[in-house]
Protein backbone atom coordinates (compact mmCIF):
# COMPACT_ATOMS: atom_id res chain seq x y z
CA UNK A 1 0.00 0.00 0.00
CA UNK A 2 1.46 3.32 -1.06
CA UNK A 3 1.78 6.05 1.57
CA UNK A 4 0.01 9.33 1.05
CA UNK A 5 3.16 11.47 1.04
CA UNK A 6 2.63 13.61 -2.02
CA UNK A 7 3.66 13.17 -5.62
CA UNK A 8 7.13 11.60 -5.87
CA UNK A 9 8.05 12.76 -9.38
CA UNK A 10 6.63 14.95 -12.11
CA UNK A 11 8.64 14.65 -15.32
CA UNK A 12 8.41 16.72 -18.47
CA UNK A 13 10.38 16.81 -21.72
CA UNK A 14 10.64 20.10 -23.61
CA UNK A 15 12.07 21.40 -26.87
CA UNK A 16 10.94 25.00 -26.92
CA UNK A 17 8.43 25.32 -24.10
CA UNK A 18 9.94 27.92 -21.78
CA UNK A 19 6.80 30.02 -21.44
CA UNK A 20 4.55 26.97 -21.17
CA UNK A 21 6.73 25.45 -18.49
CA UNK A 22 6.48 28.59 -16.41
CA UNK A 23 2.71 28.23 -16.50
CA UNK A 24 2.94 24.50 -15.74
CA UNK A 25 5.17 25.02 -12.69
CA UNK A 26 3.01 27.86 -11.41
CA UNK A 27 -0.06 25.65 -11.64
CA UNK A 28 1.33 23.05 -9.18
CA UNK A 29 -0.88 23.20 -6.06
CA UNK A 30 -0.08 19.93 -4.31
CA UNK A 31 3.14 18.61 -2.65
CA UNK A 32 5.67 17.31 -5.17
CA UNK A 33 9.07 15.88 -4.20
CA UNK A 34 10.81 16.14 -7.56
CA UNK A 35 9.92 18.12 -10.65
CA UNK A 36 12.32 17.20 -13.45
CA UNK A 37 12.58 18.93 -16.82
CA UNK A 38 14.54 17.24 -19.60
CA UNK A 39 15.74 19.93 -21.99
CA UNK A 40 15.64 18.43 -25.48
CA UNK A 41 16.35 21.72 -27.22
CA UNK A 42 19.88 20.64 -28.06
CA UNK A 43 20.94 24.09 -29.23
CA UNK A 44 21.23 25.96 -25.95
CA UNK A 45 18.31 28.25 -26.78
CA UNK A 46 16.35 27.75 -23.57
CA UNK A 47 19.08 26.82 -21.10
CA UNK A 48 18.95 30.08 -19.17
CA UNK A 49 15.14 30.27 -19.04
CA UNK A 50 14.98 26.75 -17.64
CA UNK A 51 17.80 27.29 -15.15
CA UNK A 52 15.85 30.21 -13.73
CA UNK A 53 13.07 27.81 -12.68
CA UNK A 54 15.48 26.10 -10.28
CA UNK A 55 16.46 29.36 -8.55
CA UNK A 56 13.08 30.27 -7.10
CA UNK A 57 11.48 28.53 -4.15
CA UNK A 58 8.17 26.94 -4.97
CA UNK A 59 5.54 26.57 -2.23
CA UNK A 60 4.64 23.02 -3.29
CA UNK A 61 7.73 21.61 -5.02
CA UNK A 62 10.68 20.44 -2.92
CA UNK A 63 13.16 20.07 -5.73
CA UNK A 64 13.11 21.39 -9.30
CA UNK A 65 15.81 19.87 -11.53
CA UNK A 66 16.71 20.62 -15.12
CA UNK A 67 18.72 18.18 -17.18
CA UNK A 68 20.21 19.89 -20.22
CA UNK A 69 20.80 17.35 -22.97
CA UNK A 70 23.12 18.08 -25.91
CA UNK A 71 20.47 16.91 -28.38
CA UNK A 72 16.83 15.95 -28.65
CA UNK A 73 16.49 12.45 -27.23
CA UNK A 74 12.85 12.26 -28.19
CA UNK A 75 9.70 11.65 -26.19
CA UNK A 76 9.82 7.91 -25.38
CA UNK A 77 13.51 8.03 -24.45
CA UNK A 78 12.90 10.92 -22.07
CA UNK A 79 9.84 9.25 -20.58
CA UNK A 80 12.06 6.24 -19.90
CA UNK A 81 14.74 8.52 -18.44
CA UNK A 82 12.21 10.02 -16.04
CA UNK A 83 11.54 6.49 -14.78
CA UNK A 84 15.20 5.45 -14.67
CA UNK A 85 16.26 8.68 -12.94
CA UNK A 86 13.86 8.02 -10.05
CA UNK A 87 14.03 4.27 -10.13
CA UNK A 88 12.58 3.64 -6.66
CA UNK A 89 9.57 5.84 -7.15
CA UNK A 90 6.24 3.97 -6.81
CA UNK A 91 4.86 6.01 -9.69
CA UNK A 92 5.79 8.71 -12.16
CA UNK A 93 3.54 11.54 -13.27
CA UNK A 94 4.46 12.50 -16.82
CA UNK A 95 3.17 15.58 -18.55
CA UNK A 96 3.70 17.64 -21.68
CA UNK A 97 5.16 21.11 -21.30
CA UNK A 98 2.07 22.89 -22.66
CA UNK A 99 -0.23 21.59 -19.91
CA UNK A 100 -1.41 23.53 -16.84
CA UNK A 101 -3.05 21.82 -13.87
CA UNK A 102 -6.41 23.18 -12.81
CA UNK A 103 -6.92 23.60 -9.02
CA UNK A 104 -7.23 20.27 -7.23
CA UNK A 105 -6.30 18.11 -10.26
CA UNK A 106 -2.92 16.94 -8.93
CA UNK A 107 -4.45 16.01 -5.57
CA UNK A 108 -7.10 14.01 -7.35
CA UNK A 109 -4.59 12.23 -9.59
CA UNK A 110 -2.44 11.38 -6.57
CA UNK A 111 -5.35 10.06 -4.52
CA UNK A 112 -6.61 7.85 -7.34
CA UNK A 113 -3.07 6.55 -7.85
CA UNK A 114 -2.99 5.45 -4.18
CA UNK A 115 -5.76 2.99 -4.97
CA UNK A 116 -3.93 -0.34 -5.25
CA UNK A 117 -6.19 -1.60 -8.03
CA UNK A 118 -5.35 1.17 -10.47
CA UNK A 119 -2.28 0.88 -12.72
CA UNK A 120 -2.48 4.02 -14.84
CA UNK A 121 -4.30 7.31 -14.40
CA UNK A 122 -5.03 9.40 -17.47
CA UNK A 123 -6.21 12.97 -17.11
CA UNK A 124 -8.53 12.60 -20.08
CA UNK A 125 -9.83 10.03 -22.50
CA UNK A 126 -7.54 10.92 -25.40
CA UNK A 127 -8.61 10.96 -29.01
CA UNK A 128 -8.22 7.20 -29.35
CA UNK A 129 -10.31 6.62 -26.20
CA UNK A 130 -7.79 4.50 -24.32
CA UNK A 131 -6.55 7.24 -22.01
CA UNK A 132 -4.58 10.33 -22.97
CA UNK A 133 -0.80 10.57 -22.67
CA UNK A 134 -0.54 14.36 -22.49
CA UNK A 135 -0.87 14.05 -18.71
CA UNK A 136 -0.75 10.63 -17.10
CA UNK A 137 0.45 8.58 -14.16
CA UNK A 138 2.27 5.30 -14.66
CA UNK A 139 2.80 2.99 -11.71
CA UNK A 140 5.61 0.51 -11.13
CA UNK A 141 3.12 -2.32 -11.70
CA UNK A 142 2.79 -1.31 -15.36
CA UNK A 143 6.54 -1.29 -15.96
CA UNK A 144 6.68 -4.78 -14.47
CA UNK A 145 3.92 -6.00 -16.73
CA UNK A 146 4.72 -4.41 -20.09
CA UNK A 147 8.06 -2.64 -19.76
CA UNK A 148 9.33 0.77 -20.77
CA UNK A 149 8.33 2.91 -23.75
CA UNK A 150 9.53 1.91 -27.22
CA UNK A 151 12.45 4.17 -28.12
CA UNK A 152 12.27 3.27 -31.78
CA UNK A 153 9.41 5.76 -31.83
CA UNK A 154 11.80 8.62 -31.13
CA UNK A 155 11.71 11.52 -31.65
CA UNK A 156 7.92 11.73 -31.30
CA UNK A 157 4.44 10.40 -32.01
CA UNK A 158 2.86 6.97 -31.64
CA UNK A 159 4.76 6.14 -28.42
CA UNK A 160 1.36 6.43 -26.73
CA UNK A 161 -0.38 4.26 -29.34
CA UNK A 162 2.27 1.58 -28.89
CA UNK A 163 1.85 1.64 -25.13
CA UNK A 164 -1.95 1.58 -25.35
CA UNK A 165 -1.72 -1.40 -27.73
CA UNK A 166 0.55 -3.21 -25.31
CA UNK A 167 -1.79 -2.47 -22.38
CA UNK A 168 -4.67 -3.88 -24.37
CA UNK A 169 -2.80 -6.97 -25.53
CA UNK A 170 -1.49 -7.68 -22.03
CA UNK A 171 -4.93 -7.34 -20.51
CA UNK A 172 -6.43 -9.75 -23.06
CA UNK A 173 -3.72 -12.30 -22.38
CA UNK A 174 -3.88 -11.83 -18.59
CA UNK A 175 -7.52 -11.06 -17.77
CA UNK A 176 -7.06 -11.57 -14.01
CA UNK A 177 -4.00 -9.35 -13.87
CA UNK A 178 -4.86 -6.87 -16.62
CA UNK A 179 -3.77 -3.23 -16.66
CA UNK A 180 -6.42 -1.09 -15.06
CA UNK A 181 -6.77 2.44 -16.34
CA UNK A 182 -8.58 5.25 -14.59
CA UNK A 183 -9.66 8.00 -16.94
CA UNK A 184 -10.41 11.17 -15.05
CA UNK A 185 -12.10 13.14 -17.79
CA UNK A 186 -10.68 16.21 -16.10
CA UNK A 187 -10.60 19.73 -17.35
CA UNK A 188 -7.05 21.11 -17.54
CA UNK A 189 -5.22 23.47 -19.84
CA UNK A 190 -3.53 22.06 -22.91
CA UNK A 191 -2.12 24.89 -24.96
CA UNK A 192 -4.40 27.91 -24.67
CA UNK A 193 -7.68 26.15 -24.02
CA UNK A 194 -9.15 23.60 -21.64
CA UNK A 195 -8.86 19.92 -22.53
CA UNK A 196 -12.63 19.66 -22.54
CA UNK A 197 -12.89 22.22 -25.35
CA UNK A 198 -13.59 20.32 -28.60
CA UNK A 199 -11.00 22.47 -30.42
CA UNK A 200 -8.30 21.58 -27.90
CA UNK A 201 -6.53 18.66 -29.58
CA UNK A 202 -6.92 19.70 -33.23
CA UNK A 203 -6.18 23.40 -32.78
CA UNK A 204 -4.28 23.99 -29.54
CA UNK A 205 -2.37 20.93 -28.30
CA UNK A 206 1.13 19.92 -29.52
CA UNK A 207 2.60 23.38 -29.05
CA UNK A 208 6.06 22.09 -30.02
CA UNK A 209 4.97 22.05 -33.64
CA UNK A 210 2.92 25.23 -33.41
CA UNK A 211 5.73 27.42 -32.08
CA UNK A 212 8.91 28.80 -33.61
CA UNK A 213 12.02 27.42 -31.97
CA UNK A 214 14.85 29.86 -32.48
CA UNK A 215 16.35 28.94 -35.82
CA UNK A 216 13.50 26.54 -36.70
CA UNK A 217 10.15 27.93 -37.84
CA UNK A 218 6.88 26.33 -36.75
CA UNK A 219 6.29 25.23 -40.39
CA UNK A 220 9.64 23.49 -40.50
CA UNK A 221 9.04 21.86 -37.11
CA UNK A 222 5.62 20.70 -38.27
CA UNK A 223 7.23 19.08 -41.31
CA UNK A 224 9.80 17.26 -39.16
CA UNK A 225 7.15 16.06 -36.73
CA UNK A 226 4.80 14.91 -39.50
CA UNK A 227 7.66 12.96 -41.07
CA UNK A 228 8.27 11.23 -37.76
CA UNK A 229 4.56 10.57 -37.34
CA UNK A 230 4.30 8.96 -40.81
CA UNK A 231 7.24 6.63 -40.21
CA UNK A 232 6.01 5.73 -36.74
CA UNK A 233 2.52 4.88 -37.98
CA UNK A 234 4.06 2.37 -40.39
CA UNK A 235 6.20 0.94 -37.61
CA UNK A 236 3.16 0.57 -35.38
CA UNK A 237 1.29 -1.38 -38.05
CA UNK A 238 4.26 -3.73 -38.40
CA UNK A 239 4.47 -4.14 -34.65
CA UNK A 240 0.81 -4.57 -33.75
CA UNK A 241 -1.11 -4.99 -37.01
CA UNK A 242 -3.52 -2.71 -38.89
CA UNK A 243 -5.98 -2.33 -36.05
CA UNK A 244 -3.46 -1.91 -33.29
CA UNK A 245 -5.66 0.11 -30.95
CA UNK A 246 -8.60 -2.25 -31.34
CA UNK A 247 -7.08 -5.70 -31.88
CA UNK A 248 -3.30 -5.67 -31.41
CA UNK A 249 -1.76 -8.86 -32.77
CA UNK A 250 -0.60 -11.55 -30.36
CA UNK A 251 3.16 -10.94 -30.59
CA UNK A 252 5.05 -7.71 -31.33
CA UNK A 253 6.25 -7.73 -34.96
CA UNK A 254 4.42 -11.05 -35.30
CA UNK A 255 7.39 -12.98 -33.88
CA UNK A 256 6.19 -15.84 -31.69
CA UNK A 257 7.45 -16.15 -28.13
CA UNK A 258 8.88 -12.66 -28.05
CA UNK A 259 7.79 -10.94 -24.84
CA UNK A 260 5.50 -7.94 -24.99
CA UNK A 261 8.17 -5.57 -23.63
CA UNK A 262 10.86 -6.49 -26.14
CA UNK A 263 12.04 -3.95 -28.69
CA UNK A 264 15.09 -4.11 -30.91
CA UNK A 265 16.75 -0.70 -31.03
CA UNK A 266 16.81 0.11 -34.74
CA UNK A 267 19.33 2.90 -35.24
CA UNK A 268 18.67 3.25 -38.98
CA UNK A 269 14.94 3.67 -38.42
CA UNK A 270 15.41 6.28 -35.70
CA UNK A 271 17.97 8.16 -37.78
CA UNK A 272 15.42 8.58 -40.62
CA UNK A 273 13.35 10.76 -38.32
CA UNK A 274 16.16 12.78 -36.76
CA UNK A 275 15.28 16.46 -36.25
CA UNK A 276 18.91 17.53 -36.85
CA UNK A 277 19.26 18.88 -33.33
Amino acid at each position, binding site marked *: MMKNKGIPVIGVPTINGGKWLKRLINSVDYPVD*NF*IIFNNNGRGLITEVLDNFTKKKHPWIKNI*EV*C*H*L*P*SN*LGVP*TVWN*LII*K*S*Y*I*NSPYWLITQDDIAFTPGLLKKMHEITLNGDIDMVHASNGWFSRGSYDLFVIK*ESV*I*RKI*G*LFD*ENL*SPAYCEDHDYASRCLRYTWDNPKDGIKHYILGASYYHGRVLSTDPTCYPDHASQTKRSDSGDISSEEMLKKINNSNDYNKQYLIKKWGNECLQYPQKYPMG*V*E*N*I*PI*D*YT*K*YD*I*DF*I*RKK*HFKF
Partner: protein
Amino acid sequence: MENNLIPIPIIGVPIVNGVHWVDRLIKSIDYPVDNLLIINNNGKGEIDSQLDDLKKIDNKFIKKLHIIHFPSNLGVASSWNLIIKLYLMKPYWVICSHDVAFTPGLLEEIAIATLDKEVAMIHPHEGQFNLGSYDLFIITEKGVKDVGLFDENLYPAYAEDSDFIMRLNNIQPKMIKGLKNIHLHGDEIAKADDEHYKKNGMQTKKENEELAMLLNQSNEINGEYLSKKWGDGWRMVQPHWNPFCNAEYPQSYITWDLDFVRSKYLGF
Protein backbone atom coordinates in the same frame (compact mmCIF):
# COMPACT_ATOMS: atom_id res chain seq x y z
CA MET B 1 46.76 21.77 -35.63
CA GLU B 2 46.64 20.35 -39.14
CA ASN B 3 43.50 21.24 -41.07
CA ASN B 4 43.10 17.91 -42.86
CA LEU B 5 42.57 15.87 -39.72
CA ILE B 6 39.11 14.29 -39.40
CA PRO B 7 37.96 15.12 -35.88
CA ILE B 8 36.73 12.50 -33.48
CA PRO B 9 32.95 13.11 -33.37
CA ILE B 10 32.32 12.26 -29.72
CA ILE B 11 34.07 11.05 -26.61
CA GLY B 12 31.71 10.12 -23.77
CA VAL B 13 32.69 9.68 -20.12
CA PRO B 14 30.42 8.69 -17.22
CA ILE B 15 31.57 9.68 -13.74
CA VAL B 16 30.41 9.17 -10.12
CA ASN B 17 33.41 10.64 -8.24
CA GLY B 18 37.07 11.54 -8.70
CA VAL B 19 36.89 14.67 -10.88
CA HIS B 20 40.69 15.04 -10.89
CA TRP B 21 40.85 12.07 -13.23
CA VAL B 22 38.62 13.82 -15.77
CA ASP B 23 40.74 16.94 -15.45
CA ARG B 24 43.70 14.78 -16.50
CA LEU B 25 41.67 13.16 -19.28
CA ILE B 26 40.71 16.52 -20.79
CA LYS B 27 44.28 17.77 -20.68
CA SER B 28 45.49 14.60 -22.41
CA ILE B 29 43.41 15.23 -25.54
CA ASP B 30 45.87 16.02 -28.34
CA TYR B 31 43.70 15.55 -31.42
CA PRO B 32 40.57 17.39 -32.65
CA VAL B 33 37.41 16.25 -30.86
CA ASP B 34 34.01 17.72 -31.82
CA ASN B 35 32.17 16.77 -28.63
CA LEU B 36 33.34 15.71 -25.20
CA LEU B 37 30.38 14.58 -23.12
CA ILE B 38 30.62 14.05 -19.38
CA ILE B 39 27.72 12.23 -17.74
CA ASN B 40 27.55 13.15 -14.07
CA ASN B 41 26.09 10.15 -12.27
CA ASN B 42 26.94 11.39 -8.78
CA GLY B 43 23.29 12.13 -8.04
CA LYS B 44 24.06 14.01 -4.82
CA GLY B 45 25.37 17.28 -6.24
CA GLU B 46 28.81 16.60 -4.72
CA ILE B 47 30.78 17.14 -7.91
CA ASP B 48 28.55 19.46 -9.97
CA SER B 49 30.57 22.62 -9.47
CA GLN B 50 33.92 20.81 -9.78
CA LEU B 51 32.77 19.42 -13.11
CA ASP B 52 31.47 22.80 -14.27
CA ASP B 53 34.89 24.25 -13.49
CA LEU B 54 36.39 21.90 -16.08
CA LYS B 55 34.87 24.17 -18.72
CA LYS B 56 37.62 26.64 -17.87
CA ILE B 57 40.34 24.31 -19.16
CA ASP B 58 41.58 25.72 -22.42
CA ASN B 59 42.21 22.78 -24.72
CA LYS B 60 42.17 23.96 -28.33
CA PHE B 61 41.50 20.39 -29.53
CA ILE B 62 38.05 20.23 -27.94
CA LYS B 63 35.29 22.03 -29.84
CA LYS B 64 32.47 21.50 -27.35
CA LEU B 65 32.39 20.24 -23.78
CA HIS B 66 28.95 19.20 -22.56
CA ILE B 67 28.21 18.12 -19.00
CA ILE B 68 24.91 16.51 -18.04
CA HIS B 69 24.08 16.47 -14.35
CA PHE B 70 21.63 13.64 -13.78
CA PRO B 71 19.54 13.56 -10.60
CA SER B 72 20.72 10.02 -9.85
CA ASN B 73 23.21 7.40 -10.94
CA LEU B 74 21.94 5.94 -14.20
CA GLY B 75 24.63 3.29 -14.19
CA VAL B 76 27.34 2.44 -16.68
CA ALA B 77 25.32 0.58 -19.34
CA SER B 78 22.60 3.26 -19.50
CA SER B 79 25.25 5.98 -19.71
CA TRP B 80 27.05 4.21 -22.54
CA ASN B 81 23.75 3.85 -24.39
CA LEU B 82 22.95 7.51 -23.79
CA ILE B 83 26.28 8.56 -25.32
CA ILE B 84 25.17 6.74 -28.48
CA LYS B 85 21.57 8.01 -28.45
CA LEU B 86 22.56 11.62 -27.77
CA TYR B 87 24.93 11.66 -30.75
CA LEU B 88 22.81 9.38 -32.88
CA MET B 89 24.04 10.51 -36.29
CA LYS B 90 27.73 10.01 -35.54
CA PRO B 91 29.61 7.20 -37.29
CA TYR B 92 31.25 6.02 -34.08
CA TRP B 93 31.47 6.76 -30.36
CA VAL B 94 34.59 6.78 -28.20
CA ILE B 95 33.62 5.68 -24.69
CA CYS B 96 35.98 5.76 -21.76
CA SER B 97 36.23 5.50 -18.00
CA HIS B 98 36.89 8.71 -16.11
CA ASP B 99 40.27 7.44 -14.87
CA VAL B 100 41.71 7.03 -18.36
CA ALA B 101 44.14 9.42 -20.07
CA PHE B 102 45.14 9.42 -23.72
CA THR B 103 48.81 9.00 -24.53
CA PRO B 104 50.28 11.14 -27.32
CA GLY B 105 49.12 9.99 -30.76
CA LEU B 106 46.45 7.56 -29.50
CA LEU B 107 43.44 9.63 -30.53
CA GLU B 108 44.86 10.14 -34.01
CA GLU B 109 45.44 6.41 -34.25
CA ILE B 110 41.81 5.84 -33.23
CA ALA B 111 40.55 8.29 -35.86
CA ILE B 112 42.55 6.48 -38.55
CA ALA B 113 41.36 3.04 -37.38
CA THR B 114 37.72 4.13 -37.73
CA LEU B 115 38.18 4.74 -41.46
CA ASP B 116 37.59 0.99 -41.95
CA LYS B 117 33.78 0.94 -42.09
CA GLU B 118 33.62 -2.85 -41.64
CA VAL B 119 34.90 -2.60 -38.08
CA ALA B 120 32.36 -2.96 -35.26
CA MET B 121 34.59 -2.37 -32.23
CA ILE B 122 38.03 -0.94 -31.59
CA HIS B 123 39.87 -1.64 -28.35
CA PRO B 124 43.10 0.32 -28.03
CA HIS B 125 44.10 -2.22 -25.41
CA GLU B 126 43.56 -5.88 -26.31
CA GLY B 127 42.45 -6.70 -22.76
CA GLN B 128 42.67 -9.98 -20.91
CA PHE B 129 42.49 -13.08 -23.13
CA ASN B 130 42.43 -10.76 -26.15
CA LEU B 131 38.73 -9.99 -25.59
CA GLY B 132 39.15 -6.22 -25.78
CA SER B 133 39.32 -3.84 -22.85
CA TYR B 134 36.32 -1.64 -21.98
CA ASP B 135 38.09 1.09 -20.01
CA LEU B 136 38.49 2.76 -23.41
CA PHE B 137 36.75 1.45 -26.50
CA ILE B 138 35.14 2.59 -29.70
CA ILE B 139 31.81 1.26 -30.91
CA THR B 140 30.92 2.04 -34.51
CA GLU B 141 27.51 2.32 -36.15
CA LYS B 142 28.15 -1.16 -37.54
CA GLY B 143 28.67 -2.33 -33.96
CA VAL B 144 25.34 -0.89 -32.84
CA LYS B 145 23.52 -2.36 -35.86
CA ASP B 146 25.03 -5.84 -35.56
CA VAL B 147 25.51 -6.25 -31.81
CA GLY B 148 22.97 -3.82 -30.33
CA LEU B 149 23.04 -1.54 -27.32
CA PHE B 150 24.35 -2.40 -23.86
CA ASP B 151 22.16 -4.37 -21.45
CA GLU B 152 20.82 -1.92 -18.86
CA ASN B 153 19.81 -4.70 -16.51
CA LEU B 154 23.48 -4.76 -15.60
CA TYR B 155 22.96 -1.60 -13.57
CA PRO B 156 24.70 0.10 -11.85
CA ALA B 157 28.03 -1.36 -12.92
CA TYR B 158 30.01 -4.48 -13.81
CA ALA B 159 29.40 -7.25 -16.31
CA GLU B 160 28.00 -4.90 -18.98
CA ASP B 161 31.28 -5.50 -20.84
CA SER B 162 31.13 -9.28 -20.34
CA ASP B 163 27.61 -9.36 -21.76
CA PHE B 164 28.82 -7.53 -24.85
CA ILE B 165 31.82 -9.87 -25.13
CA MET B 166 29.43 -12.85 -25.28
CA ARG B 167 27.51 -11.27 -28.14
CA LEU B 168 30.70 -10.38 -29.98
CA ASN B 169 31.93 -13.93 -29.48
CA ASN B 170 28.77 -15.30 -31.08
CA ILE B 171 28.57 -12.82 -33.94
CA GLN B 172 32.31 -12.51 -34.67
CA PRO B 173 32.26 -9.08 -36.32
CA LYS B 174 35.45 -7.40 -37.46
CA MET B 175 37.25 -5.90 -34.46
CA ILE B 176 40.53 -4.15 -33.88
CA LYS B 177 42.18 -5.17 -30.63
CA GLY B 178 45.41 -3.51 -29.66
CA LEU B 179 46.70 -0.25 -31.08
CA LYS B 180 50.29 0.96 -31.16
CA ASN B 181 49.56 3.61 -28.54
CA ILE B 182 47.96 2.50 -25.28
CA HIS B 183 46.16 4.75 -22.80
CA LEU B 184 46.78 5.29 -19.13
CA HIS B 185 44.31 3.64 -16.77
CA GLY B 186 44.81 5.02 -13.30
CA ASP B 187 48.50 5.81 -12.94
CA GLU B 188 49.96 3.38 -15.44
CA ILE B 189 49.69 2.28 -19.05
CA ALA B 190 46.80 -0.23 -19.26
CA LYS B 191 47.97 -3.82 -19.04
CA ALA B 192 46.21 -7.17 -19.32
CA ASP B 193 46.84 -8.49 -15.85
CA ASP B 194 44.94 -8.63 -12.58
CA GLU B 195 47.67 -6.90 -10.58
CA HIS B 196 47.58 -3.88 -12.83
CA TYR B 197 43.77 -3.75 -12.71
CA LYS B 198 43.70 -3.95 -8.92
CA LYS B 199 46.27 -1.20 -8.64
CA ASN B 200 45.02 1.16 -11.35
CA GLY B 201 41.43 0.29 -12.25
CA MET B 202 38.20 0.62 -10.24
CA GLN B 203 38.97 4.19 -9.13
CA THR B 204 35.28 4.81 -8.36
CA LYS B 205 35.43 2.13 -5.66
CA LYS B 206 38.68 3.43 -4.25
CA GLU B 207 37.12 6.81 -3.47
CA ASN B 208 34.51 5.30 -1.12
CA GLU B 209 34.69 2.05 0.90
CA GLU B 210 30.98 1.72 1.41
CA LEU B 211 30.37 2.19 -2.29
CA ALA B 212 33.03 -0.43 -3.01
CA MET B 213 31.10 -2.98 -0.95
CA LEU B 214 27.84 -2.26 -2.75
CA LEU B 215 29.54 -2.41 -6.14
CA ASN B 216 31.02 -5.79 -5.24
CA GLN B 217 27.50 -7.03 -4.50
CA SER B 218 26.30 -5.64 -7.81
CA ASN B 219 29.16 -7.46 -9.54
CA GLU B 220 28.08 -10.77 -8.02
CA ILE B 221 24.39 -10.30 -8.80
CA ASN B 222 25.22 -9.27 -12.36
CA GLY B 223 27.39 -12.36 -12.72
CA GLU B 224 24.39 -14.51 -11.78
CA TYR B 225 22.30 -12.67 -14.37
CA LEU B 226 24.92 -13.46 -17.02
CA SER B 227 24.76 -17.14 -16.05
CA LYS B 228 21.02 -17.05 -16.70
CA LYS B 229 21.43 -15.15 -19.93
CA TRP B 230 24.39 -16.99 -21.44
CA GLY B 231 24.84 -20.12 -19.30
CA ASP B 232 27.64 -20.80 -16.81
CA GLY B 233 30.07 -21.01 -19.72
CA TRP B 234 30.11 -17.24 -19.97
CA ARG B 235 33.06 -17.12 -17.58
CA MET B 236 35.09 -19.12 -20.11
CA VAL B 237 33.60 -17.16 -23.04
CA GLN B 238 31.57 -20.19 -24.08
CA PRO B 239 28.07 -18.72 -24.05
CA HIS B 240 24.83 -20.20 -25.34
CA TRP B 241 24.14 -19.21 -28.90
CA ASN B 242 20.90 -17.39 -27.98
CA PRO B 243 20.28 -15.25 -24.91
CA PHE B 244 18.31 -17.17 -22.28
CA CYS B 245 18.56 -20.24 -24.57
CA ASN B 246 15.60 -19.00 -26.58
CA ALA B 247 16.01 -19.53 -30.32
CA GLU B 248 13.70 -16.59 -31.06
CA TYR B 249 15.88 -14.12 -29.19
CA PRO B 250 18.46 -12.21 -31.23
CA GLN B 251 21.93 -11.53 -29.83
CA SER B 252 20.83 -7.95 -29.07
CA TYR B 253 17.85 -9.16 -27.01
CA ILE B 254 17.19 -6.96 -23.99
CA THR B 255 14.15 -6.27 -21.86
CA TRP B 256 14.32 -4.18 -18.71
CA ASP B 257 13.60 -5.73 -15.32
CA LEU B 258 12.67 -2.97 -12.86
CA ASP B 259 12.86 -5.15 -9.74
CA PHE B 260 16.20 -6.66 -10.70
CA VAL B 261 17.67 -3.24 -11.39
CA ARG B 262 16.24 -1.89 -8.12
CA SER B 263 17.79 -4.75 -6.16
CA LYS B 264 21.21 -3.22 -6.86
CA TYR B 265 20.39 0.41 -6.06
CA LEU B 266 23.39 2.12 -4.49
CA GLY B 267 21.42 4.73 -2.58
CA PHE B 268 21.98 7.57 -5.05
